[in-house]
């Protein structure tokens, strides 16, 4: 058995495994294109004979998706902004030193990372309603997501800062730069890619966030797409082609970003997650 034959057959098996694994995704795209009757046919068609392309426009209009997606974008961008502004400096300091205080800080951050959102929402909701934050529900959700996701961001970005050689910063200090000057002109530019990838991961997480938005945003006009999808799926729904079209519109931008930046995202994730 030659090596090329072995490699080819491995590739074929890998493709089959990937196809099986990604079947649910395929099924979402296919169902969205089926007509109402084709959807409930037995046996189900694995390739749509009569694709209904107009369904995307219909669902976008009838479910008012523009508003939902806009709210998701606002919430996701707000969370990324808060997390990046606060988290980058924290990650930098935690990467630069190695002493007891850094250990304690890291431990605290790792502990806060693991608190499940659905368990934290009760005190957050009651507390926010007492200080009046629920008057601004999207801001409340942004703050809650920021508190939840910042530890993850700090852990990832810290790994990036650790790979920036400290000699470069020291050289800048010797040349007369202040600490602030060296941070902004040397360290930040060198860590830019890692910060960007981590910010994209946070964006994807916040774009799909559900628990906080569902609990804290009562006004429909301010709800994000995840809550919209949830209210679309009643207990006895049979509009599965419309729901899958909704899901397709919602998830395709995220999948596109992921596939384009896959290599960077995976390596960024693996460098931080186990460290």
């Amino acid at each position, binding site marked *: 058995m030659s090596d090329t034959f072995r490699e080819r057959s491995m590739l074929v098996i890998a493709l089959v495994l990937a196809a099986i694994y990604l079947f649910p995704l395929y099924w979402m795209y296919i169902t969205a294109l089926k007509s109402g009757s084709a959807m409930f046919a037995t*046996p189900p068609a694995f390739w749509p004979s009569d694709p209904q392309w107009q369904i995307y426009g219909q669902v976008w209009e009838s479910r008012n998706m523009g508003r939902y997606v806009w709210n998701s974008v606002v919430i996701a961008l707000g969370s990324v902004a808060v997390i990046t502004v606060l988290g980058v400096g924290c990650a930098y300091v935690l990467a630069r030193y190695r002493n007891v205080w850094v250990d304690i800080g890291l431990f605290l951050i790792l502990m806060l990372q693991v608190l499940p959102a659905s368990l*934290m929402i009760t*005190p957050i909701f009651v507390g926010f*309603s007492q200080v009046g934050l629920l008057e601004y529900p999207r801001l409340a959700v942004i703050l809650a997501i920021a508190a939840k996701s910042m530890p993850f961001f700090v852990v990832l970005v810290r790994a990036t800062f650790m790979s920036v050689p400290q000699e470069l910063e020291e050289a800048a200090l010797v040349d007369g730069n202040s600490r602030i000057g060296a941070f902004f002109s040397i360290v930040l530019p060198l860590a830019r890619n890692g910060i960007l990838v981590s910010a994209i991961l946070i964006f994807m997480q916040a774009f799909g966030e*559900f628990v906080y938005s569902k609990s804290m945003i009562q006004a429909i006009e301010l709800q994000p797409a995840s809550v919209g*999808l949830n209210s679309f799926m009643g207990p006895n729904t049979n509009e599965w082609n419309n729901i899958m079209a909704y899901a397709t519109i919602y998830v395709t931008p995220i999948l596109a970003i992921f596939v384009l930046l896959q290599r960077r995202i995976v390596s960024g994730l693996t460098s931080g997650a186990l460290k």
Partner: protein
Amino acid sequence: MKRILSSITDGRGFDIALVALPLAFLLLLSGLPLLYNVLMSFQEVDMFSLGTLWRPFVGFENYRELFEQPETLPILGNTAIFVTASIAGQFLIGFGLALFFWTNFPGASWLRGLFLVSWVMPGLVVGAIWNWILSGDFGVLNFLLRESGLISGNIFWRSDPNYSLWAVVMANVWLGTSFNMILLSVGLSAIPGDLYEAAELDGANAWQRFWTITLPMMRSSIGALIALGLIFTLQQFDLFAAITSGGPNNSSNVTQYWAWDMSFRQYDFAKGATISVIMIVFVMLASIVYVRSTRHEVRG
């Protein structure tokens, strides 16, 4: 004043400012709610006292009432089943895939990365897709199982109390397998190759190499991953909201969904807080295991 200012632009104060601000933010928005949660679990909370901080103190009354409810033990049992089955499924399938993709062939790392789409998708979307796949009469899973002769009649995954929990487990295994696989791949690629060459020269077969080299070398990765799996599984909420809503009759309810349901469906915030406190203790224990198992890597 000038000294403080110059310390912030060019000294120790710079580091302290950078770290103090985010830590204060985290303590305010995560630490404080955590304590408030404990406080609420000892109070009597209703819609009228929601706006005040000092409510009637009831001691362990909430805890006692909670464990007198008939559904408490079954839900705790469901949580145990959900966590164990999800972690076992994710880990075993993930490990199998990681071992397969470890044998380098062209395109292996790209294809492996592609699996991670299940992990970056919004949980609600994953739940919606599986809800449709698992549908009783028209679901594609029932069709495939019938065609392959594994079942004779349709299984009503979401509405049959015997299967509803497993419907969510299935979706959760799908969601988490890719993450397990990626992290296990990292662990595998860190094993030095000459160990295997030496073992091969000594005449060890593939099975022996797996048991005597791969598994022992992966011990710390596996420990960290299982602790991480426990943490992630206890965070899983979206799939329950999207597939079964904990039903029918609590047969697929787990604590993290139940706590939310208590507070935001039944408006019993004290019970919601009580369940949260109990579960957060569990999560904290798991995370201590996780932090300990990665401790040497954190320092390195």
